[in-house]
């Protein structure tokens, strides 16, 4: 397969590279923002589980670079366990979102003030078994929700990734016990076939309610498809020449930093080098045999 085949299959992957986003997920936040006006008037924002940093890029662009009403007070804090390449205007904390020290660090950057917006696009490395993946994702969301209740201003907003699987009702009820308004956003840059969606939570309850164990929701959250209807759609295939523009291949913006299989890859490369001589031998052997025939 050629290197352009992924570009053909996925228009947002291609656009992300063209526009300089580290991941296609940047469009998801942009489209949710377009629908919910999340970033209007936000001074302090927190990006949880930020790596590789595409959502931080969006926050930085919308709050600082392209913000006509910016005051100069805007602050963005990105938290992740892993190191991530710097993003202009974004303060990085390499830490665990479940730790109190992280909360304190965030407050110190905000001079003790609470955030207007908390976003979390974190997801585990999926195993392929939906039940485990959905469970771990819900645990991640609850951890994000827990820190959010401590750092978010009462009128602030919380946006996080969810997997809409079999136990999603329970998760909705837990979010509804913390927020008055919970909606489910599906950006058009997220494929219909994917179980991924995003919760947009607004207006924190002064006192957290006890969520019912059976997942008794107050009501089913509103479902909102986000993104311009005339814009690109992630399920649709587009020709390489978009709107008559000439196609040019772009390298990915950011390759993974220190993946778990790094050591494995190194060993693999080394092994391949060592066996190269051996393979050459085999090839010669085959050629000889063929010429005999």
């Amino acid at each position: 397969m050629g290197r352009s085949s992924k570009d053909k299959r996925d228009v947002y992957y291609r656009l992300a590279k063209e526009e300089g986003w580290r991941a296609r997920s940047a469009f998801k936040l942009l489209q949710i923002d377009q629908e919910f006006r999340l970033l209007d008037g936000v001074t302090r924002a927190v990006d949880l589980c930020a790596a590789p940093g595409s959502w931080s890029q969006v926050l930085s662009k919308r709050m600082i670079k392209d913000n006509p009403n910016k005051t100069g007070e805007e602050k963005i804090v990105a938290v992740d366990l892993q190191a991530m390449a710097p993003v202009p205007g974004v303060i990085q904390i390499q830490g665990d979102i479940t730790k109190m020290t992280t909360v304190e660090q965030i407050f110190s950057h905000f001079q003790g003030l609470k955030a207007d917006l908390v976003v979390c696009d974190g997801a585990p490395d999926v195993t392929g078994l939906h039940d485990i993946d959905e469970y771990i994702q819900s645990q991640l969301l609850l951890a994000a929700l827990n820190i959010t209740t401590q750092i978010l201003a009462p009128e602030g907003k919380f946006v996080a990734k969810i997997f809409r699987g079999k136990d999603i009702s329970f998760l909705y009820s837990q979010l509804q016990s913390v927020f008055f308004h919970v909606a489910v956003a599906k950006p058009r840059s997220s494929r219909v076939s994917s179980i991924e969606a995003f919760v947009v939570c607004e207006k924190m309850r002064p006192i957290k309610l006890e969520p019912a164990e059976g997942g008794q929701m107050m009501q089913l959250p509103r479902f909102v498809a986000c993104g311009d209807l005339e814009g690109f759609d992630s399920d649709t295939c587009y020709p390489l020449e978009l709107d008559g523009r000439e196609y040019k291949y772009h390298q990915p913006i950011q390759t993974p930093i220190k993946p778990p299989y790094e050591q494995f890859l190194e060993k693999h490369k080394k092994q391949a080098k060592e066996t190269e001589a051996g393979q050459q031998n085999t090839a010669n052997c085959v050629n000889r045999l063929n010429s005999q025939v």
Partner: protein
Amino acid sequence: MKAKTIRINADVTAVKILGNKIFAGVGGHVHIFSVENGRSQIDATFEIFEGQKIHGFCHDTERDEIVVFGGRLFLIFQLTKLTECGIIDSPVHKVSNWIQAVHWLQDGSIALALSNNMVKQWKDGQIIASVQCPIKCIIYSALLLGSSWDSLVVFSGTVFSEVLIWGSDGKVWHQLKGHNGVIFSISFDKSRQRLLTSSDDRSVRVWQKSADSTWSSCSLEQVQELYGHQSRVWRALPSKFGLVSIGEDSFVCQWDDSGKELSKMCSHQGGSIWSIDICDSYLVTGGGDGGIMCWNLEHGFETKQFGSPVNVRKVAWTPKGQLLVVTEDEKLFIMQECGAIEQAPFDVQMIEIFQDLIYLTTVSGNLNLVKDVRSKAAFLTGRVSDGAAVLSVVPLKSTTFLVSLSSGERIFWGFENGTLERLASYTASPKTKGVSCGLCIGDYCVIGDQDGFLQLFNWKSMEVEQNLNMKSEGVTGICMFRGLIWATCKEGKLLTLLLEHGQISIVNAGQPKLGMLAGLEVTSLGLLLYSFHRENFSVWSWDQQRPIFKFHCPGGGHRSWDFRLSSENKMCFAFVRHKKAFYQQQRLKDVAAPVLRTGLHLNLINCMVPLDSNHLLSGGEDGSLRISDVVSGSSCTVIQAHLSSVKALLKDKNTLVSAGGRAQLAVWQILNINSNWILKLVTSHMLLESAEKSVKAPWRDSYLNPRADPESRYMALCLLSHNESKLVFLAACSDSFLRIFEYFNSTLQTLKTIAFHKTCVMTVSSTAELVASGGSNGVVAVWNPGDLFNEEPKPLWSEVLHQGGVTSLTVTEEKFLFTGGDDGILLISTLNNGINILYKIDNSTQVSGIAHFGRYFVSTTSGQKVSVWQYTSEGCDKSFEKSVAVSDLQGATLIISSQTSAQICVFGKGSEVLKLDYN
């Protein structure tokens, strides 16, 4: 309304060996198999958890009780009660967090390790103790040891690549660092006092515990770091030889004590292997394809050298498993039981063995047919050539054989009356490399040659009636199996052909990716394929869809070799290398182990249609089409049909259209031969065919795989008309077009491309009077079928019915329209002068499929719910609902067997068949 699960096929996430019983967790069902003398049978199936997968079993020998757990649920049952009463009726218990491990304590309580790094003690329905590890984080694996709560040792594998060892007092004793990824499994090798861990970082690590010390005071040292898997390693377990690991790459890797790789077997069709259990040298694995397999861990089989100073040219096994060797100086030797060598009184250059006859031939054409090579008296002697060199001798049936000569002549010889008789002959190209295999079927004989051709010879007309170019480097084997002719080609192609009305036609050409295919044979173990790949000769079982044994054989398969399953149930393999003969003999019982269940698709099932009341046809993300038994759920037929995923199927009478990724469409003829369902490819079509590229590796290019741009995907199909031989259908395409295709005279052509939807068309449905289509932007359009052929077709009505994509849609004869969306909304509308919504049903997850029958319809959601609804124009009621353990549900199909009963087959990552009684 009642429903009963009659089949479940899903990821096998737990397996356990208990004596001669094997327990397997398939979705929320426990399957119990018994294995005896290498044979297996299923004893019982119980649904334990509704909608929750089983992730483990834990057995207590003293009480003979088993804990079954999965997710936050667990259940305890007594084994003796199960065998006596045949039921499991114990209550299901629920805890606060995901259970990673369960352990029986001596006082009859159980310890549970939870994913939030907490352990709980449970007894008689209550949690009686609980402790949280001071290092709070998500754990992906755990192991519990110790006989009481106070002496409990907890091992937790964290998301942060560490193994924590701690006690029920909450003190952390060890924090093992080394892995670079999530820890997926921890196990303890008691005999060697070693801890085994497996991880996301593709490695298995072995940690040695210092002798004579407790876990709290011991030291632990990483002694081995094993890299053998290509992908994530899910489990590592101790075995009597060392350890065994399984992973996402579908390999079962066996390692010895010192960390040397002993063997590596690929199975479960290349999908993930989720679960494993070992008992002595017996191993069971459960896969992502839904398969459950036993393995024999015995190894170290030695290849022996045929002890002689002579230069060996050919090897052959007699039916009884005796090795015969032909040397370069034309001598024949017999290998004795004891290993001694005996010379036979024949001069020979070629040797073939068929049934009880041994064909000994010289290149010049002298033939000796013998039953016992020791006796000088031949059964028959004669000449089979008039001068040209003999290239090969191929026995066809008990008294007929074929000789191919260097002149190109091929002569059929018979000896029915005790004398050699020339029956017929035909001529091939004088450049021929000779015949390699042949098969007699009634009045016909099918012959395969090393030039890559197949000839159909008619005994009545005494002529070759067909000479088919297989575009191959040589046909290596041919046999009859399940009513079809099967042939292997040197470059790795496996062909199935049909002999019908005196004509051979190709049914399918697959590429099993086994390396060089050297032959095939129908044996007592079913159809076996022989292949050479890298340094191994593999015996691959078609029934089991896995290799049953590998012989180390460096140097490839171009030289003389022979394999035979002897009458004494030994697997015999011999080959020549550097003019020496090498051989191995294994007793079948030492190497073979049964397959408890063959798998189905190894990834998502996207579409399914019934073939008859007992068979389902499915297409999946893995690009294959499969025919499976409704009850057993095992694959009966597997066809690697598409380059990419199969997303839609359309069946009308005996014609099937499959469509999917890379804009690939294929038309198949559905045949039933000897009560086997067979799909015969008629034509395959791609939208954008690029210029034929030069192909470096021809074996990668099966004939049905035209190269094309991976541009568009077909999402759904529906029928427009079918009369006589002409089939017209509509395809929903991801590039936003609706396309009309016509299939006529074995060819497919695009009749029309309709631009209406502005985004990906997700789904289409049709009746004789109406066609409906739905897009990923929520737009639903209803068309008059006739209008589709207009210059600029316009729908009758179109509306945005859903937020987000329309994921399912069905239109009925009574002009009802059912639509389901990503927004979780299910709409029932009538189609009279417009789309009039009657009912709206809210779901918390995507409505992925709708199927309708009579006054009922079935809906499936990605939240694993299957619902049956009864509807009229006055109301709509839920008649039945069930949570299934099949995740990622894509839809449902129905088998209507009578007025009062139907079978609902739901599919996604696996499938489940529910028998519904609605009276």
